[in-house]
């Protein structure tokens, strides 16, 4: 199966003295759900931002949907790649849900009718149909997260990439469950950076552990999250789900 993301020897530094990412190589297949975990400051968000094209001065090679990640391809790539920010309010800058979700399609030249159809479909996938006309600032945290995802889905349909930075932060249990269900239903390839290891367990079959600028583990989520030693060596702790084995 052809990869939708191909990363070769990615290196990145903010300041000349220290490389935050120092030689990362991996590939993601269409529809795959990959968790990105690691201690604070290890570079999870940086990694996602590089893939989104928000930090263009990287070293190495990145290909997304067969396009090399460079400025001249940003338009094409961003048609297929979406980024869900940790702070949803920064991402939802129109006044109502449907206006915001239609923002991407209209910018990419969809006609009004096509845009409306995409919006409807995207809201359906995220269970937000009833909130189409609602003002953004009246949405709950969970609803904002879903609105942000809908905005991405409206543009890329099913065959793209969705990057999520700390998606479960400040969500109450019900919204969290809802988000997990929505993410599981998305056909796009997904990269989720999160501290919430239980959330990663519920949404990603594959997980990458970053530490010291490198990929220390890349494989099955369950096996990683059970490995107390490996987690603790890299600044993490066992997720709650795995502390009480009887519950699984």
């Amino acid at each position, binding site marked *: 199966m052809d990869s939708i993301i191909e990363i070769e020897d990615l290196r990145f530094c903010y300041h000349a003295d220290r490389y935050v990412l120092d030689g990362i190589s991996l590939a993601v297949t269409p529809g795959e759900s990959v968790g990105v975990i690691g201690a604070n400051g290890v570079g999870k968000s940086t990694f996602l931002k590089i893939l989104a094209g*928000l930090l263009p001065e990287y070293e190495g090679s990145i290909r997304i949907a067969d396009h090399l990640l460079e400025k001249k391809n940003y338009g094409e790539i961003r048609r297929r790649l979406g980024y869900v920010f940790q702070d949803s*309010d*920064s991402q939802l*800058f*129109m*006044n109502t849900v449907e206006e915001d979700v239609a*923002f991407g399609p209209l910018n990419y030249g969809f006609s009004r009718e096509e845009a409306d159809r995409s919006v409807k479909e995207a809201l359906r996938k995220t269970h937000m149909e009833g909130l189409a006309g609602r*003002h953004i*600032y009246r949405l709950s945290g969970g609803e904002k997260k879903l609105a942000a995802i809908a905005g991405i889905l409206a543009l890329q349909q099913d065959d793209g990439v969705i990057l999520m930075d700390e998606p479960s932060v400040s969500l109450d249990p019900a919204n969290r469950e809802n988000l997990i269900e929505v993410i599981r239903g998305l056909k796009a390839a997904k990269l989720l950076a999160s501290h919430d290891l239980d959330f990663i367990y519920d949404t990603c079959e594959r997980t990458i552990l970053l530490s010291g600028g490198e990929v220390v583990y890349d494989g099955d989520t369950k096996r990683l999250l059970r490995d107390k030693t490996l987690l603790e060596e890299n600044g993490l702790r066992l997720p709650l789900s795995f502390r009480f084995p009887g519950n699984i």
Partner: protein
Amino acid sequence: MAKLGRAIREIHSLENLAERNTFFNRIHPTAKVLVTIWYLILVMSFGKYDVTGLFGMCLYPLILMISGDISIGQAVRRLKPVLLMVFLIGAANPFFDRTPVLEAGGITVTAGMLSMLTLFCKTGFAVFASYVLIATTTMEQICYALRRLHMPQILVTVLLLIYRYLVLMLKEADRITQAYMLRAPGEKGVKKSAWGPLAGQMLLRSMDRAQRVYESMTMRGFRGEFFLRGSFIPLRQSVFYGVVWCLVLAVFRLVPVFELVGRIFIR
């Protein structure tokens, strides 16, 4: 700082009003904006002693408020911000202008009183007319109207963004000041040592947010234009509404309608 909480509630209440599905809400916003401006120009063009003529202009806001179920009490409350300045300026008139105009029932009405009255009436009518506009038209629709009236795109975009983030900022300011008050009981405001840090931190966070907004806009292909839309009653109905009101208002400006009607009953 109860101001912040009140501001948030005011925005919510206006949006609730403007989002109703009444006839006036569905008139094309450009028509409503133009009628409002025309009304304001006509009202302000009345001479300072023309009380009876001016009085006739009360019908526009009155009819719209009653037909559109808009609370007159709320409209009166909106006089608050401009009341002080207008009152101080207007109340001076009877003192400085004591030319007698007419005697009625033993009371001498002076020119100063008349000019004060017209000033107050004009203030009230203007505030009510603006209230009627914003109570039947959402901010997005007003921006749509402004765009149709050829206001530059950049200004409309900035307007929409300010409005979008306004409630967020008001809530954040509210939280920050509440947190401050909890640790500084008895103080009515932010003291000097906290002037810089309190507002400064909020400012820096706002700039960071602006950076993120910019990033998410570019991620979704922003090219400098916000696409606005609306669903209104058929255009010719809105045009008819606009033309009729403009003509009626012009008639009331040129012709002393009230006086003519009154003369029918008084010889």
